[in-house]
């Protein structure tokens, strides 16, 4: 299979700290691939290796079929990249920035003249393109960051937290833009903390923690792994007796906890809150809040990361 991104035992150490640990990542072409992980999981380090900013300690990386090495200019010709909280030279105007970057991609004057106004409009900066970037708000810098990532009509777009700093309208616009470019055959690799955003637009997801892959599959397969529904119970005091009582219920296929919240994986679409409540109360638990909903990416994420932290399912 043709992959847009393929890493083989990718490892990056910073002194004694292992930021990326034998990471094996495969991103299929023409997909929107979400890249998730808690803070410090190694997402940004991985992305910086993918775009040639950092040299891996060991392992290899292929992007669009080419081995990636630090300072290999040509390997970035077909990649668009937006860093987390991008910073651009304050002395340049928005349109000037895109023009000078366009020249670096070897775009002709005509190509720049056609592409830049379209992108300015696409990211909602029309009318502000001739202002100095130093006068841009955080959200506007984010928008020009997205524009420069799409400037060369890349085959692969790597976006590191593209929604940070955007207002709700901007977030929706960016999601729509990603869907649009994906339909045109562009592979989008998206790192985000906003799980609902990933759930809305991604068709594939990779979850990492401590620099290693915890899960990587289609969103459908990953979501299906947890069963049809999840219950969240927030307790005043979560005891082992409560967990043991809940586990006896026939429709409970798994439980795990984060702090005083108990997550229960259930195998039925029926509303079973009353039965669970009865068992919890009977075991001495005091319920502060309770909900039952269809399993989502957040549940998977919490389960996998909790498990990886040593908070094993009960």
């Amino acid at each position, binding site marked *: 299979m043709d992959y847009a991104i393929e890493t083989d035992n990718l490892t990056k150490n910073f002194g004694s700290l292992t930021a990326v640990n034998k990471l094996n990542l495969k991103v299929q072409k023409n997909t929107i691939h979400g890249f998730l992980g808690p803070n410090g999981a190694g997402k940004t380090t991985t992305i*910086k290796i993918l775009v040639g900013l*950092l040299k891996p300690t060991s392992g290899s990386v292929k992007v669009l079929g080419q081995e990636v090495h630090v300072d290999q200019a040509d390997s970035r*010709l077909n990649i668009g990249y937006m860093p987390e909280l991008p910073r651009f030279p304050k002395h*340049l105007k928005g349109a000037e920035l895109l023009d000078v970057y366009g020249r670096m991609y*070897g775009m002709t004057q005509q190509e720049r003249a056609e592409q830049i106004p379209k992108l300015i409009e696409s990211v909602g900066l029309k009318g502000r393109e001739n202002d100095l970037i130093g006068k841009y708000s955080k959200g506007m810098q984010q928008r020009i*960051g997205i524009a420069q990532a799409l400037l*060369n009509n890349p085959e692969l777009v790597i976006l590191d937290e593209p929604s940070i700093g955007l207002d709700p309208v901007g977030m929706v616009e960016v999601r729509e*833009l990603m869907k649009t470019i994906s339909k045109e055959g*562009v592979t989008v690799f998206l790192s985000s903390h906003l799980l609902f955003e990933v759930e809305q637009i991604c068709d594939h997801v990779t979850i990492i923690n401590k620099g290693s892959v915890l899960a990587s599959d289609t969103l459908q397969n990953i979501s299906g792994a947890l069963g049809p529904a999840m219950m969240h119970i927030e307790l005043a005091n979560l005891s082992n007796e409560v967990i043991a009582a809940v586990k006896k219920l026939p429709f409970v296929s798994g439980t795990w906890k984060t702090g005083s919240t108990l997550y229960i994986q259930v195998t039925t679409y029926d509303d079973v809150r009353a039965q669970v409540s009865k068992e919890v109360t009977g075991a001495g638990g005091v319920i502060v809040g309770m909900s039952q909903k269809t399993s989502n990416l957040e549940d998977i994420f919490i389960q996998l990361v909790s498990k990886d932290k040593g908070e094993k399912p009960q």
Partner: protein
Amino acid sequence: MTAMQQATGTRPSWFTRFWAIVRYEMLWNIRKKKFIGVIIVAFVFATLGLVLPSILSSTTGTAITADPNFAITYGATSFGFFLFALATAMNSISSEFESGTIVPLLTKPVSRTMVFLGKLFAAFVIILVSYVILFTYTTVGSIFVYGPQNNLQLVPLVLLGNLISTFIWVSILLAMGSLTKNTIITVLVALGLFLSLFIAIPIVSVFAGPSQSLNYLPGSGAGGSMLVGNTTMTINTGTDNLGVNLVNYVLYPSGNVTFSKIDLSAIQAGQTTLPTTGVLYTEPISLIALRALGVAFAYIFVFLFIAWIALKRSEIME
């Protein structure tokens, strides 16, 4: 949102990408307040150099002495070289790291060598253009103030010498910026080095005499004198005087410079000339000019190499 176009695309040439970096850097330089400030200061000093004798002559009632060599001996000072270098190169590399703009830049299809050479070339063009304007201004001004000028064809040689002298500091600043990635440390180290040399060289000259070691440090170098006809010219051998010494070499190719040590024990109150211990050694002007050129190129090469290697090997953590 509008639909994107189809992929652009052929591989751009090395020169196309290099020129884009030059453009990126020049747009920054011409908008830098520091650089505009230095240009204004340079023009103010050049104007004072031209106008002050006129003002003084009108107040004292004495006519200005015609000086047909003013244009070819009037170059920037050591501090001028340092200021131009500082304004152009002090944060050329370090601020890219400090502000985080290095990340989007190095993820474009440009190599670090292209970025380095583009920044260097932009600094060269900016300083060259500034010096051309400044030298044109002082040359035309000197004709008005000091009368017809001799050897005007040698003015570009003075300019070239001054450009090389400035580039010693440009290369030191780029090396420091690339190594430390911090503008404040870069400026402090370069300023410390400049002031140390600025203060140390005259002190060494007075107490130890015109030592040969002074010829190999950036700055004014050793002081000597050259007899041209009935006139004794003061010659300083260092890299800061490269432009003037290249002109002296062209005008007086067989000239010899004598070096003497000041006799501190023989100094008495009311003396108009300082006593010396006699001639220590002599050197031809050709050796002085070409050695300064070699020393300047050696410094430029070494520091630019350090700057390039440091940038090549940088891990982009921003």
